[in-house]
């Protein structure tokens, strides 16, 4: 099932499928690109940032950015 990265639940895993083209190069520098596996690690309340785990390290993203990343989640 496809959903926005911002909509992933805690502990859920998925593969990045699409990234807003204006964000692509910026996120690539942080290791987020199409084909990469992500796991939702933390969601901060009140429209706060999300933290995802990639390749054994964590990255926090603003909700606005997480909205523009489409992920294919398992199950």
């Amino acid at each position, binding site marked *: 099932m496809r959903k926005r990265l911002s909509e992933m639940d805690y502990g859920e895993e998925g593969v990045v499928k699409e990234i807003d083209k204006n964000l692509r*190069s*910026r996120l*690539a*520098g942080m*290791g987020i690109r199409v084909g990469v596996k992500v796991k939702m690690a933390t969601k901060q309340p009140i429209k706060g940032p999300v933290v995802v785990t990639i*390749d054994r390290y964590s990255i926090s993203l603003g909700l606005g950015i997480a909205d523009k990343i489409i992920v294919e989640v398992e199950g």
Partner: protein
Amino acid sequence: MKILLMGNPNVGKSAVFNRLTGAKVIESNYPGTTVDYTKGYMRLEGKEIEIIDVPGTFSLEPKDKAEEVAVKILRENKDSVVICVVDSTKLERGLYLAIEIIEEGYPVVIALNMWDIAKDKNIWIDIEKLQNILGVPVVPTIAISGEGIKELISRIKEASPVDIKKILKRAGGKR
């Protein structure tokens, strides 16, 4: 010639900087911004060489003030050798920046820092292979204990510009 220390935020650039310069550290302010960078000197083959601790950046397309300063310093010092400090546990994003710098034509040496932490996390990096693909010196370091710093210094002279197309070919990638 100058040496620029570059890398993602929080990879131990300043720890490497302190190792390379010893106590001769000067704080300075880059004009036009509020972001500080640090400048110092190190001895290389009997000569005093200026070394700049550049603010951390993820890419050469700046998205904030600190990154703007980083890119500006790089572009204003075309005759520099860049020591790209990479967190060994976050290899991919470190290499992204390193390759961008190589693509701009700078001679680069890669310091795979926090080598001990990578080992603890069971991350193994094939240094020989990485070196062969990139065509630049790659040195594992543990800046806080000083391990690998001597080798890093001794290999600065091996750094030379590399054609990005050759890297792509050696990596077996397509464009």
